[in-house]
């Protein structure tokens, strides 16, 4: 169930709105996680954040992958990071000093991870408090979790109320997501993004289909992202694909953002491009 706030934006958790003199609305803290590494958590976080900001929302992205900072690269903000998550948690920098405004999207901010530190150095309770304070200032706080299910994951999850799990159509990834969802429990209402789907392989029977993955995980399906060369290009440039207004994959990210915002958009699917006969033979022989 969703309700509409005064700004016209859908809020999924009305019970979390608080009244402090005048009515204020706490933002939603969403952790993006997967268990397995390399499935596209950071790309998903960057694009979801961008797409939400393009819709006019105020969004803070937290890179919780302490020691392996990446989100700044994907957003193209690596040269602007002065302070990081641990500076804020250890109070050597203020949150305002550490939040880097995005180059491309107004209302989007990044809190980078510390590169030369370790995940164990993060205090879980301080992390929880930080996310809580950011929820007072932003509509969305999106936390990019590190791979794994250890301390780094637990810190990333600490302040969140909701979870997005990212999965690729592979046995190992599905298994890890299943495990992570078990660890998260129902409290986070995990929703699924299936990433790196290759429709042609699915059609041939070489890759698990969206339906297959769905049948195993039984999670609300938030989005399906095709494995597209364009994502590599945009990551190389540090310009998230969701900045583009056209293109199927950009549209898929915007649909995810709309769904996160509570809009009732059609169920996600990937379309199979119609290849020429030559392409089909060529790909078939090479795959």
């Amino acid at each position, binding site marked *: 169930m969703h309700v509409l706030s005064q700004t016209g934006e859908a809020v999924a958790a009305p019970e979390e709105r608080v009244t402090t003199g005048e009515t204020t609305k706490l933002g939603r803290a969403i952790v993006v996680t997967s268990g397995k590494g390399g499935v596209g958590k950071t790309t998903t976080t960057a694009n979801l954040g961008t797409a939400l900001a393009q819709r006019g929302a105020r969004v803070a992205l937290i890179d919780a992958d302490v020691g392996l900072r990446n989100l700044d690269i994907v957003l193209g903000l690596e040269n602007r990071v002065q302070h990081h998550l641990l500076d804020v948690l250890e109070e050597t920098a203020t949150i305002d000093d550490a939040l880097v405004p995005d180059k491309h999207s107004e209302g989007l901010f990044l809190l980078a991870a510390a590169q030369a530190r370790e995940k164990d150095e993060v205090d879980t309770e301080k992390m929880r408090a930080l996310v809580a304070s950011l929820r007072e200032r932003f509509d969305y706080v999106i936390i990019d979790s590190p791979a794994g299910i250890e301390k780094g994951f637990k810190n990333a999850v600490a302040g969140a109320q909701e979870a997005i799990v990212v999965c690729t159509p592979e046995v190992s990834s599905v298994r890890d997501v*299943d495990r992570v969802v078990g660890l998260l429990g129902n409290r986070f209402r995990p929703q699924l993004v299936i990433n790196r789907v290759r429709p042609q392989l*699915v059609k041939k029977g070489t*890759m*698990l289909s969206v339906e297959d993955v769905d049948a*195993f995980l039984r999670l609300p399906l938030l989005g399906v992202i095709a494995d597209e060369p364009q994502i590599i290009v945009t990551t190389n440039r540090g310009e998230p694909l969701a900045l583009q207004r056209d293109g199927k994959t950009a549209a898929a990210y915007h649909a995810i953002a709309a769904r996160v915002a509570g809009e009732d958009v059609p169920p996600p699917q990937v379309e199979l491009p119609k290849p020429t006969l030559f392409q089909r*033979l060529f790909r078939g022989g090479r795959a």
Partner: protein
Amino acid sequence: MIEFLRRFFAGTQLSANAAKERLRLVLMTDHLALGPEIVEAMKRDLVDVISRHVEVDRERIEVTFEQQDRSLALLANVPILSVHRPEPREPAKSPPQRPRRKRRSRRKSTAAVPATEPAAAT
């Protein structure tokens, strides 16, 4: 060439199915997280309880696990040999530590002469 492609496709069609089957088994064991000896003990206890009411074929019992939505279901296939007539429960009469086989034979005899047993039990 065409033949090669056809064979190639026939081969690859299996790989998504292979993935599905492997995933099914791997998730099942992940969810179960129980050793085979626990499953065996569970099966035995389950059958003991059912045997209080009906006579079952212990040799042909199948216990399997199946994923249903987000949870794992235990499915027991228990062939029933004969249905005991309703008789008053006899909690004190069957101490759990008594050997299974012995209890079963005793049960058969109570089914044959239902009138004497309840009187003795109460």
